[in-house]
């Protein structure tokens, strides 16, 4: 689905993701600037994968530790933001597997250094506000369902079903349908921007 990666988000991230630092010359102040700039996106991705607050904290910390251990080998400081978000996602997926009781091999616990995922550019507050404006264009129950899904990280399908007066079994399929409609609206934005 990278085809619907909105150029609006690319524009924002290009500014945000160039922290004007070289990993080889980082000091504590520059590091804290990196933390302030990217920790929100990292946290949001870990939580969006369904991790508890405690597991998400471990995933985010893992991504920072991966950066610390890779500082001497990172060649492309412009992509540190995408790298951090991608690495957080990898660590979160691995922690989620462990939490489900899946056996992860020792080498599987420590991945190869992540390749930044360009799609991570959409993990951005400005783009998020843009998406909310598109959510508001959807009818019900999509608008309310997406709002509950997004704003209540620990809400269960049963709770959403009660709030929206839907059968529990239909919450998942309805959400999938609403997300598809939202994606279609976002894809129209991308097409419009490319055409202009």
């Amino acid at each position, binding site marked *: 689905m990278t085809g619907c990666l909105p150029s609006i988000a690319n524009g924002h991230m290009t500014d945000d993701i160039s922290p004007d630092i070289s990993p080889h010359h980082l000091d504590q102040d520059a590091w804290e600037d990196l933390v302030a700039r990217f*920790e929100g996106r990292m946290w949001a991705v870990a939580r969006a994968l369904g991790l508890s607050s405690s597991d998400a904290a471990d995933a985010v910390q893992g991504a920072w530790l991966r950066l610390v251990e890779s500082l001497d080998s990172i060649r492309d400081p412009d992509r540190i933001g995408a790298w951090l978000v991608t690495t957080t996602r990898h660590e979160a997926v691995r922690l989620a597997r462990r939490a489900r009781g899946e056996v992860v091999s020792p080498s599987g*616990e*420590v991945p190869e250094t992540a390749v930044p995922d360009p799609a991570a550019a959409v993990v951005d*507050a400005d783009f998020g506000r843009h*998406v909310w404006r598109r959510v508001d264009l959807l009818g019900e129950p999509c608008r309310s369902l997406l709002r509950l899904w997004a704003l209540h990280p620990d809400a269960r399908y049963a709770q959403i079903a009660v709030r929206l007066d839907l059968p529990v079994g239909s919450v998942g399929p309805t959400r999938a349908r609403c997300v598809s409609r939202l994606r279609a609206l976002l894809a129209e934005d991308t097409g419009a921007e490319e055409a202009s």
Partner: protein
Amino acid sequence: MRDEYLLAALRLGAGSDPVPARVSAAARAAFALHLPGGIAAPPVEVPAPSGARSGAPGTDTGPDEGRDEGGDRDGGGPDELRLRRFTAAGLTIDVEITVTGGRLEVAGQVSPPPGPDARVEVRTPHIAKVRALTGGGHFAVAGLPAGWVSVVCHRPGEPPVFTRWAHVGA
């Protein structure tokens, strides 16, 4: 676009679910763990997998077909014991981590043995313990908090060699 990226963007846009202060503090403190000039040792597969609980590091225990019958392979529960092997710069660092009562016991071996002046530092983000090595290159540290762990081998006149960080749950 992945669902989780879309969801993360929505939450960021709404300002909901902010980063907890302790997560920020840990992130800021992580920079102090950088080892300038250090050599990262990536993990390698261990020939005899961890099911052979009686096997010492580096011992070829061979297949152990009965290991699933004991009922103790609970994928991360108490008394979990797993061997991890890391190599770089001609050094192999074997690390075995036992989880007991939520605390980690880390034992291992550096091979070839790096000599009497070498030290091993077992690090977590919040605490580090330094140990001398036995003549055979063995080391052990107990009482560490669960979470992220890395082992560093310091040798006089050589850059430090550190295992990449591994996560061990309680």
